[in-house]
């Protein structure tokens, strides 16, 4: 597993970079409607920030900040939300993934679809982020 490498510069750079990357990731997810970006990109960026944490802080510290189980939980729950978003319209008489029939009162038409896309993008972001961290963790376990 990855060992913590004692070096001030790395610590500082890490502590500066990680929040920045995370902020950018959030921006990318949110901005997906209007420009390049979206769930995948944002999710991967967020995962990259966690990976950076893992690399800089070492196992114990980074596991405290982002527990490995959280990764799996994020990945699965993201997909769960996606599925539920897909199934919800069916309860309201629409097709699977038909955001136009999401049972949300007071919203309709294009806005409802916009909302649906937003939910889905976020769930993708969670899922991708979780899985990427999971992949990193699992592969890094192999290092001895």
């Amino acid at each position, binding site marked *: 597993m990855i060992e913590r490498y004692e070096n001030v510069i790395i610590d500082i750079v890490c502590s500066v970079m990680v929040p920045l990357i995370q902020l950018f990731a959030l921006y*990318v997810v949110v901005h997906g409607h209007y*420009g*390049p*970006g*979206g769930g*995948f*990109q944002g999710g*991967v*960026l967020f*995962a*990259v920030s966690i*990976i950076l944490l893992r690399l800089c802080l070492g196992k114990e510290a980074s596991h405290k900040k982002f527990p490995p189980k959280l990764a799996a939980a994020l990945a699965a729950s993201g997909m769960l939300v996606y599925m539920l978003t897909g199934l919800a319209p069916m309860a309201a008489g629409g097709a699977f993934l038909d955001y136009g029939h999401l049972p949300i009162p007071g919203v309709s038409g294009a806005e409802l679809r916009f909302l649906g896309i937003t939910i889905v993008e976020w769930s993708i972001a969670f899922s991708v982020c979780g899985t*990427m961290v999971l*992949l*990193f963790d699992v*592969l*890094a376990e*192999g*290092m*001895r």
Partner: protein
Amino acid sequence: MIWQIDFWLLVVLIIAALLALEVRDLLAAVAVLSAYSFLAALLFAQLGAIDVSFVEATLGAGVSGVLFVLALFCTRRRYEK
């Protein structure tokens, strides 16, 4: 879409691909592969596919590079053979 840029990027891509396969140092090969992906991302952007370019740069060049390097460290085999 400027075809000269396309052309030269493709040429570089081919060179990078050959290089990635022929370099005997595996870490270097993986690095070249990342570069290859990054060049591809550039080409995507050049062709107007900014979303794809973004994903290719993060996933293709970034994450897959990291995973490759991790695997290399796990297997402790720097060189072919």
